C-alpha cells in the first residue's frame, strides 16, 4: 500500500477542522452570535473569549463558526448547481458533436465563452445587485459561473473519450448517446470532476466572502466571514484581531481545499501516479 500524498493529509486535515467547526455551530457556539453586549466590546483574546469580541461585544469565535457554516453551505449548493447543470450539458454537447451535430455544441460553447468573458466575481455582483442582496441570490450567482467551468471541462474530457475504441464498441452494440455517456464516459471522468469540484469549492468560498464583504451576500444579523472583514477594516489599528481571525479562517480553509484537491488528483490520476518498475519496460 502506497502512502498517501502529504498534500492530501494536510489538506483534508485542515478542511476537516472547518467542517467540524461548522457542524458544531448547529448545536453549540460559545456565545449567541446575535446577542449584542456593548459593555464587552473590543475585548482582547482571552480565556473567556478565545478570539476576542467585536465592536458590539459579540464573540468572534462564535461568529467565525457560524460564518464558516454559511460559507460552506453556500459553496456546496453553488458548486452543486454548477455540476448538476454543467456536467450533463458537457456530456450532451460532446456526445452530439461526436454523433454528427455540432450545432448545439457551437451555441452552447459560445454561450459558455460569454459567461467566461465576465470576471466571475463582477458577474456575481451584477446578479446580486439586480436581484437584490441575500444568501439565495449569492448562491445562484456563484452557481451560474460554476456551470461553464464544469460544462467545458466535461466536454473536453468526454470528447477525448468518445474517440476511444470501447466507445466505438458500445456504439456498435447500438447504445445511444446518453447510455454511453452514463455507462462509459461519466465513470471515467469522475476523478477529474471530483478534483475540479474541490477547486471550485475553494473559489466559491472566496466568492461568498467577497460578496459578503461588499454587502451583497449573507445579510446581518447572520455572521459572515466576508462582512466581518469589512467591519474590521475601520478598527484595524486598535483591534487588529478582528481582521486577523476571519481573514485567517478564509485563507486556511481555501488552502486546505486546494491542497486536498491536489492530493486527490495525485491519488486518482494514473498519469501522475509514480510508475512501478514493470510498467516502464518497453
Amino acid at each position, binding site marked *: 500500500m502506497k502512502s498517501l500524498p502529504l498534500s492530501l493529509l494536510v489538506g483534508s486535515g485542515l478542511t476537516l477542522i472547518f467542517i467540524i467547526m461548522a457542524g458544531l455551530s448547529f448545536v453549540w457556539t460559545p456565545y449567541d452570535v446575535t446577542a449584542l453586549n456593548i459593555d464587552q466590546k473590543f475585548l482582547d483574546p482571552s480565556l473567556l473569549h478565545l478570539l476576542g469580541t467585536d465592536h458590539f461585544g459579540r464573540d468572534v469565535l462564535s461568529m467565525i463558526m457560524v460564518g464558516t457554516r454559511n460559507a460552506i453551505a453556500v459553496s456546496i449548493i453553488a458548486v452543486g448547481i454548477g455540476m448538476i447543470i454543467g456536467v450533463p450539458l458537457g456530456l450532451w454537447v460532446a456526445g452530439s458533436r461526436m454523433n*454528427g451535430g455540432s450545432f448545439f455544441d457551437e451555441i452552447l460553447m459560445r454561450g459558455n465563452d460569454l459567461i467566461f468573458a465576465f470576471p466571475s466575481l463582477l458577474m456575481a455582483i451584477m446578479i446580486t445587485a439586480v436581484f437584490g442582496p441575500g444568501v439565495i441570490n449569492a448562491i445562484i450567482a456563484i452557481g451560474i459561473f460554476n456551470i461553464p467551468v464544469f460544462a467545458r471541462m466535461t466536454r473536453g474530457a468526454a470528447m477525448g473519450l468518445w474517440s*476511444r*475504441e*470501447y466507445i*466505438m*464498441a*458500445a*456504439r*456498435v*452494440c*447500438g*447504445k445511444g448517446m446518453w447510455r454511453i455517456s452514463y*455507462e*462509459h464516459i461519466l*465513470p*471515467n471522468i469522475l476523478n477529474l470532476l471530483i478534483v475540479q469540484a474541490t477547486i471550485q469549492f475553494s473559489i466559491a468560498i472566496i466568492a461568498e466572502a467577497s460578496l459578503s464583504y461588499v454587502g451583497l451576500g449573507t445579510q446581518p444579523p447572520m455572521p459572515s466571514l466576508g462582512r466581518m472583514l469589512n467591519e474590521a477594516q475601520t478598527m484595524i489599528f486598535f483591534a487588529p484581531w478582528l481582521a486577523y481571525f476571519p481573514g485567517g479562517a478564509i485563507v486556511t480553509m481555501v488552502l486546505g481545499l486546494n491542497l486536498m484537491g491536489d492530493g486527490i488528483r495525485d491519488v486518482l490520476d494514473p498519469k501522475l501516479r509514480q*510508475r*512501478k*518498475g*514493470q510498467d*516502464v*519496460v*518497453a
Partner: protein
Amino acid sequence: MSLLNIQGLLLSIHGSEILSNVAIGVEEGQIVAIVGESGSGKSMTASAVMQLVPNGAEMSGNVWFMDDNLLDKTEAEMCDVRKNHIGMVFQEPMTALNPVQTIGKQVIEAVRLADKSLSKDQAREKAELMLHKVGLEQTRFPLNTYPHKLSGGQRQRVVIAIALSQNPRLLIADEPTTALDVTTQSQIMKLLKKLVKQENMGLLLISHDLAVVAEVADHIVIMRNGKVIEQGNTDIFFNEMSDDYSKELFAASKLTFKDKKSEKSSDIILDIKNLKKDYKLSGSKKLRAVDNVSFRLKKGENIGLVGESGCGKSTLVRCILGVEAYKSGEILLNGEVFDGQKELRKHINAVFQDPFGSFNPRHMVKRVVAEPFYLIDTPLSSTEQLSKVEEMLNHVGLNADDMDKYSHEFSGGQRQRIAIARALITEPSVIVLDEATSALDVLIREQILELLENLSENLGISYLFISHDLTTVRNITDRVLVMKDGIIVEQGPTNEIYNNPQHPYTNTLLEASPDITKALNDKRNELDDNFV
C-alpha cells in the same frame, strides 16, 4: 575495435531485473537488428546505451562506445555523446516533430548544435543537404514546410535527417517503421540501409518483426525476457539457429499458403451497393472518402479489405457498422437495409485494432463481454448471461475465472481474445475485424489468426478483415479487395491476387509486405551481384 560493444549489461528497476547479461556489438557500417516481443527489453537496451533510463534504474556491466565506457560517464559527458555521436529515431513520427516549427528550423537547430561554427547560411545549406539525403527534395519540401503537411513516412524521413545532421557514429532506430504502412515501411528501411553504407555509421535497429529487418540487417539479435536468446550473422543465422523461440519467430515470419476448401452457401449476408461517403473540407470542397464501393459477403466466406492509411477503409467500416451515415448507396444486412437500426445490429459486430483501448478500464471482463446483450430484444437473466459469457470465453481460449478481472490484468493478445468474445456473444453473422492483429507481436498474431480461423469454421461466422498489410490476411480470407483513394481497385480470390496481381498498386503492396524468404533471397542476390 567495435564501435559499440555492450558486455554483460545488467539493468534492474526498483529491484526487478529488466536486462540480464546482454552482450551486443555494432561495427562501423554495420546494421544490427534486435528483435523481440514487447517486454523483451529491446528498447530498454537502447535506452541503456543512451543512458536515458527511468528513475530507479541500476545498471552494471560495460557499454563500450568508441573506447569509452558509457556507464562511467557523468550526465554532462553523456549529453556530449548524445549530441555528437549517437543519433536516435523513434517509433512515432507523428509526435517526434514539433508541430509549430517548420521542418527547416528543426533540422537547422540540430545542424547548429552539432557544429556551432556554422553561419546561418551554411547551416541552411547543410540542412537542405540533409533533407536531400533522406529523399526530401527542396522543390517539393522547402525548409519552411510544417510537419502537418507531411505524411507519416515523410515525417520519419525528417526525423532521420535530424538524427543524421549530428554526423552520428551510431544511429539507434527504435521501431522506426512500426507506425507506418507497409509500402512506406520498405522505403524507410531501404533509406536507412543506404545511409548506413554512405555514412559508414553503425545502426542499431530495434523491431518486433523479424521479416521487416531480415532484408537490411547484417547481424540479428533475438531477445526475450531481457536476455539475448541467440545472435548471429544474418546470412548464416537462419540456417544455424538452434533455439526454439527463434525458430518459432522465423516460422511466423514466413509466408505460407494453405489451400482452403470451404463450401460456401449462396446466402448473401452483407451486400454493399454503390456506397459513397463524402467528408466536408474547408469551404465547398469535399473529400470523397468512399467512392462507389460494392461487394458481397456470402455466408461462411471471409473477405479481406486491404489498403494504406487514408484509403477510406476505416470510413467504410464505420458506415458498415452503422455508426456513420453514408451519402448514397445501400447496405443490406441479411437482406434488409441497414443504417444503424438496433434490431439488425445483433447480426454484425466488430473487433478493433488497439487491444488497450477497446475496453472501459472500469468494467470487469464479464460486463465488457456482456455489453452486446443490450441488443437482444428479450433480456436474458443474469445467470443466463453469465453462462453465455463463460461459454464465449471458453471459445476464445480463456477461463471462467477471467470474468472477474479487469482488462488491464491481461496481455495484448488476451485482450484481443476478450474483444473477440464480446463480438461473438450475440452470435452475429458478420464480424468486422478492423486491423485486429496489427498491434500484436508476430507470434501472438499467428495465434489470434488461428483462433479466428477455427471460430469461423466451427461457428460459421463470416469475417470482413481490414488490414494495411496484404500478407496478414492471406490465410484467413477467401477473397481480397484492394482499396486505394476510396475506390476498390482490384478484387478477386485471395490466391489469384497473390499470384497474379493485376493492378500496379496491388503489386506495390505485395512487394512491400515483409516476407522473410523473399528478404533472404534478395540479400543473397545482392551478395552475388557484389561478387560478379
